[in-house]
């Protein structure tokens, strides 16, 4: 019986000690939290207009428990944007990066200052009458300089990638659709022009406005081997009977030569017989 009682006492003692330890741990628990930043003299970053800098803030959890953090920031004129950061901090971890992308505006003026302000605070479910948590609030000043900036100059491609990151997916899809449509339109115009050029000067010489159809020309010459032939042929056609497609068919070979000759001039407006004769006189 005495032994049994001793065993029970031992268990009660162990339980009591465990409860006591847990109570002490909870009662004595207090937040230990840190934020580390790269060394910048007077917390000031010097950038030339258009320069880029990756600014990393490391959150540190010096406690034995896992907790989430509330991380907030504000930046003048959107000079900085948070691009990554995990708000859950595992126990005893000192490298939980929150990465800011800072870009000095292209039109920034030497001497201008922009401020990035950020704060971090553990989110804890604390007991007690007036529980307390800590918050760290810091700021970084971005000073615009005209030389010896601490950032990197971006290529156009890098600027585009950053611009993409800074806009939401819906906006980017709209931009891509519009750009796609513009590209298609431009491609269509180019193809159309190439097609017209491939048709040769015959195509180029087609009237830009509809030619009134007249009766077929009476052919008074049997051959069409020179510009003179064409000129002569056209001269014989009455004004109201001028029919360019018919002449083109008859003098196809000559029109090919004319195509080469007038290629640089591309499009002629041929409405009347005189228009055609003007071209042949050139």
């Amino acid at each position, binding site marked *: 019986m005495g032994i049994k009682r001793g065993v029970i006492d031992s268990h009660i003692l162990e339980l009591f000690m465990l409860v006591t330890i847990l109570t002490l741990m909870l009662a004595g628990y207090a937040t230990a939290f840190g934020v*580390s930043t790269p060394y910048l003299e007077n917390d000031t970053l010097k950038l030339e207009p258009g320069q880029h800098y990756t600014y990393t803030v490391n959150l540190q959890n010096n406690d034995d428990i896992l907790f989430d953090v509330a991380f907030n920031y504000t930046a003048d004129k959107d000079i900085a944007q948070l691009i990554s950061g995990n708000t859950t901090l595992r126990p005893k971890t000192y490298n939980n990066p929150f990465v800011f992308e800072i870009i000095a505006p292209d039109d920034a003026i030497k001497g201008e200052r922009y401020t990035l302000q950020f704060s971090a605070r553990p989110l804890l479910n604390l007991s007690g009458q*007036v529980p307390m948590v800590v918050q760290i609030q810091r700021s970084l000043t971005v000073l615009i300089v005209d030389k010896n900036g601490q950032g990197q100059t971006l290529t156009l491609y890098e600027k585009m990638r950053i611009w993409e990151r800074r806009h939401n997916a819906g906006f980017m899809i709209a931009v891509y659709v519009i750009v796609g449509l513009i590209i298609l339109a431009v491609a269509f115009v180019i193809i159309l022009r190439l097609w017209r050029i491939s048709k040769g000067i015959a195509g180029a010489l087609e009237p830009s406005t509809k030619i009134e159809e007249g009766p077929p020309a009476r052919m008074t010459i049997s051959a069409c081997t020179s510009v003179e032939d064409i000129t002569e042929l056209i001269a014989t056609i009455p004004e109201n009977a001028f029919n360019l497609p018919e002449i083109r068919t008859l003098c196809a070979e000559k029109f090919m030569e004319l195509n080469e000759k007038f290629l640089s001039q591309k499009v002629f407006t041929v409405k009347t017989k005189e228009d055609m004769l003007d071209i042949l006189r050139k």
Partner: protein
Amino acid sequence: MKKSSMRLFILAPIVLIAIVAAITLPNILQTYAASTGTFNVSLTIANSQPVVNYVAAGQSDSPAAGTTKDITISFNATDANGVADIDPSNAKVIINQSAVSRTSHTCWTVSSGTTQRMFSCNVTIQYYDLPGTWTINASIVDGASAYAENLTQTFSMGTTYGISINKSSLTFSGSPGDTNVAASNAPQNVINIGNGQFNSMNLTAYDIASGSNTIGAANFNANATANSAGVALANNTMTVIPGASLAVNGTQNLYVFLSIPQGTPNGTYTSVQPWVVTMS
């Protein structure tokens, strides 16, 4: 035969023999001497001074809040006497800023060549080691106790803003009408566990409630000293604590006092959410 031709006929062989003798005799004598004499050759190779010819550049890191942290710095040491003359146990890195220095506790060989070793050394930094530029002194001592160092590179110590409070909550007790009741576990200690200093302290208070009964945050005031004439707090409002700041390796006390309004019902009152101590 003429007399002059006769003379030439006699002298020519004599001259020829003399020339051949002049060329060959020294060689004959030398060969003879080498085969019979001895030479003592004594060659003394002097110790070559080791050189620390490379230290990794552009290194930076920040202390870990409230604790120590190892940083690793690498360098190359060269000794013309051979790599065996470069003793890893004599490799060392010291980082210095003003009067403070941190010395490596472990160095190891990363790679070895004929006359060169690359070392990496771990240096322990403290959470309160000041931010800024620290000079790296990488050194080696060879087998003949010749010393070499390289001071060309620096280490950039980042800034760690770290704080800790020693109480997770403050506790008050009193009766309606009591004024400026100090917390039973006062003060709250705000401890700097980083290497950056804070110039101001703010406290965001919240009402405390017991069921539907409330004691407004405006019934509290706070101070950096035990003087109850502190600054009045307000619900969900960040209030600057006058005179409070936090130096590196320092502690700042925070005192909070409660005046319990008359007519406050009995009960256990707790804050609707944690109060926030903001250091900036």
